[in-house]
């Protein structure tokens, strides 16, 4: 174990590559051959010289906390193949004892640290150039959303007047069209809910009940938007966020040791956007935080926080959304491994926690929960997680786009005995994301 925090795996490194060609090129440079002057610091940076074809080697530095990269090569790719190669080499072999950064690397690292502090300072975020113009823009957008919402209400009323029964043959295109109208109305949150709605009639037995549920929740959101002015602050913020207006308002800033409980990616149905979800839990505050990062087409998300690390940092919570959404602010140290098992709760308490959270955000699909001790029960018709003591269990559900191999990992880890599991608990069941075997403090990311 080196002091540059936990060494990453090769997969983690390759996930940063901007394209396939870079993956390949970086892989070629991942051996010790071309590298010299390699090293790493205790504050989470690695550096090295990579011999290219010229007489001067390229100088590569990576700040692992970002991650951020700099390299003296002329490539416009980001990160370049040298940075990837350096990280792969570090992932495979480590760079021994931590060292002071040499001058050629230290300059850039110091500059970065300064920038990070400035951008983390309150008020530096985005001071609107012209508050009056911004206010007018906001009003115009709100009006467009309201027009879209009224249209959507009309659509839902027509649907229920005629009955859901015809939906099985109505096809998806009608909903697709409505979703496009919501995009035009600048309400992306509504658009994605509508698209989701269109997939339900083809989702198998029991679909009418699920369709009514989703229609009703969409209707609830529409009504809430139209009366958003009268709602209490946090709920209003929740409604705005659910409709798809990214708030600029800042909630509380909480400094804590944030434990990384899970990190996973999902790709949008059109394959264009990768969303990375990182679940954190404050060691002191006990508060859960969900940090999202996005990768545009062909670029993986930049933020990579392996499970099992702890991060001394400030999390800035966005208002609303049951207080889950957060952005990472200033970091006070490089991520360090955190050996320990978070305390688990019973299946009943997990559902209670979800139920309580619905009060703040009725549209919440799931709530982050550490469950345990529980025993996984594989079954032909579906898996369960059962309390080690007692007879209660939660059905296990696999998130869309995730493989079932994680379930088998979970079973293997338990061997029929109790485990502690972190995951998302909601109306569809429990989605396991990370597990700890009995008597082990080693988190296993399921997936």
């Amino acid at each position: 174990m080196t002091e540059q925090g936990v060494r990453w795996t090769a997969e983690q490194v390759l996930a940063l590559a901007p394209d396939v060609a870079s993956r390949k090129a970086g892989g070629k440079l991942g051996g010790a051959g071309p590298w010299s002057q390699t090293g790493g610091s205790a504050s989470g940076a690695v550096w090295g010289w990579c011999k290219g074809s010229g007489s001067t080697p390229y100088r590569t530095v990576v700040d692992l906390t970002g991650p951020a990269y700099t390299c003296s090569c002329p490539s416009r790719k980001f990160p370049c193949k040298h940075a990837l190669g350096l990280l792969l080499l570090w992932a495979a072999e480590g760079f021994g004892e931590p060292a002071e950064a040499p001058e050629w690397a230290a300059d850039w690292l110091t500059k970065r640290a300064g920038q990070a502090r400035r951008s983390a300072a309150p008020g530096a975020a985005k001071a609107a150039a012209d508050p009056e113009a911004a206010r007018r823009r906001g009003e115009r957008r709100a009006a467009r959303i309201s027009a879209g919402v009224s249209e959507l209400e009309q659509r839902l009323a027509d649907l229920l007047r005629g009955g859901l029964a015809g939906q099985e043959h109505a096809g998806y295109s009608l909903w697709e069209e409505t979703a496009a109208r919501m995009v035009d109305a600048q309400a992306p949150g509504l658009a994605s809910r509508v698209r989701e709605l269109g997939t339900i009639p083809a989702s198998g037995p029991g679909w009418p009940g699920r369709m009514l549920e989703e229609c009703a929740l969409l209707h609830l959101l529409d009504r809430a938007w139209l009366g958003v002015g009268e709602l209490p602050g946090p709920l209003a913020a929740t409604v705005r966020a659910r409709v798809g207006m990214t708030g600029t308002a800042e909630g509380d800033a909480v400094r804590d040791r944030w434990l990384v409980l899970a990190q996973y990616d999902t790709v949008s149905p059109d394959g264009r956007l990768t969303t990375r979800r990182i679940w954190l839990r404050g060691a002191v505050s006990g508060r859960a935080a969900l940090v999202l990062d996005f990768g545009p087409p062909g670029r993986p998300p930049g933020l990579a926080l392996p499970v099992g690390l702890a991060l001394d940092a400030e999390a800035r919570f966005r208002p609303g959304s049951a207080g889950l959404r957060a952005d990472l602010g200033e970091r006070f140290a490089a991520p360090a491994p955190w050996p320990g098992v978070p305390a688990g709760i019973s299946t009943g308490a997990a559902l209670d926690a979800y139920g309580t959270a619905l009060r703040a955000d009725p549209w919440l699909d799931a709530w982050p929960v550490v469950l345990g001790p529980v025993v996984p029960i594989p079954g032909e018709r579906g898996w369960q997680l059962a309390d080690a003591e007692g007879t209660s269990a939660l059905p296990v559900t696999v998130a869309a786009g995730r493989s079932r191999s994680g379930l088998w990992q979970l079973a293997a880890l338990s061997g029929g005995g109790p485990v502690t599991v972190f995951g998302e608990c909601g109306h569809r069941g429990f989605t396991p994301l990370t597990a700890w075997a009995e008597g082990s403090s080693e988190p296993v990311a399921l997936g």
Partner: protein
Amino acid sequence: MNGDNGNNGDKHEPVNGVDAGGVADWEELVGVALLGTERRRGDGAAGSPEALLDAAAVTAVRRRAGLRPAAAGPRPDPAAPDPRPAPPDAARRRLAQLLAGRTGGGGRRGAAPDLTELLPQWLAAAVRHGYRAPAALVPALLDAARARTDLRPQALALAGGRGRWLARLNPEWRFALRGGAGGGELPAPDDRAGVERLWQEGLFAERVALLGAVRAHEAAAAPLLLSTTWATERAEDRLMFLDSLRSGLSQDDEPFLERALGDRSRNVRATAAELLSALPGSALAGRMAERALACVGPDGVVPPGECDAGMQRDGVVERPPAGRGERAWWLGQLVEAAPLSCWRERFGGLDPAGILALPVAEGWAEELHAAWCRAAVRQRDPLWSKALLGSASAPPAAGPATASLAERAKLLETLSEEERARWVAEFVRAHGLSEAFQLLGVCVVPWAEELGSAVVDALDSARNAGSYPWSFSGVMGLAERCLDPAAADRLESLLAVALAEEISGEAGRDQAAAEVTPGAEAYWAEAFQRLVSTLRLRAAMLAELAGSGEPAEPAPAPAA
């Protein structure tokens, strides 16, 4: 969730929360929604679509907030504890990486090590250390073993009881439960009743596995077990069972094998004869020696005039394959089955090399030497093998016995590890690598220093001669897997040379533009780089498995 655990992976789990007063209402609401509000007269909550949606929204959120756990189904029986230690953390991370790389299809190009090829080494080393597989990696290990049968014995040994426990739950891993694959539940070899029962009632695969286990535990018990049912077994099963006596073959097996010489099946008879001829002290070997000595001696070669019933009973096949004379065919079989020890006296005390150097009359040389080759391999006689191989530096065609590399590889396998490596090293120094692949394949891993140096030198000369590395891709792959990791330092310097000579457009151009055809040097640089990094990786792998003194199991942690 009340009892409804169906449809995993379905994104919309139907949830029937036990919600006092809510369920019936909800069902009613769904009924109305299905039909549509305009088909329903009345002044109930569902009069207008808006009213229906309002009621449904309240009910839906209330149901979600009131969800209760379901009743747990029957729990699986716990897996038996595995007393073996888990490998050290670093080794565990390495295995995860190797298993993840399994599907990567590394291939033979590029500078990165081909992880697929290192997995067998890791598994074998871990088995030697007596580790168990880390629980979380058992599914990936089973998947790997399902795809690659060559990994099965080691993978299943590592997965142990946890692997079998999982395999009972997932039909995809059923192979792990089959006997013979090292996964079945066999009775202990000394549990007489259990062995007897499984032998009488078990499936064929289970019985083969059982016989193997009994043979390994107490060699003499295997023919006894076979005798109990021998008369009732099918011919092809008899052949398989007989074959399992190859391991641990000894003089004690002779009575059973002698009886099998009278078997109804010709294949069984031939196999029994072959096994007996590998026992130089057996009566069959004696009979064969007598026949062979009558045909071959200092005065020349007189092939047998007939293939009598006795010869046939001792496994000599009467009908030659097309294109061979029958007398030469019989002679070859006699010499092959005669113990090699009988020739020294016949030729006046000459050693094998001396005997082979004698001129052979009437063009029998090839026939005779080929038969001696087969005898040396069958009887695992290093002295004869060495003599038959001759000098490694002589041109293969000039050898005393065989120019066939496959035959030579078999002969080499009877030599001691050191002698084998020395002979192949000399061969590589004399003839280069293009012919050496099969011979290198029988050398012990990691290669001895002399052999490793010879191979590295030969690669370097090939590079200097301007050939392309893919002409040697087979040897390169072997070198990555078999060179002693200590050879990496020397290769580093070769790599530096290759890199220095590499002329590839890199600066200021993007990758597409750099796709001009580089010279051989670039490919050599790449190939050497992969070789070096693979060796470093193997060294790291073995060091990790040996453990750097860190505890294999983390101590129970305090709860947060």
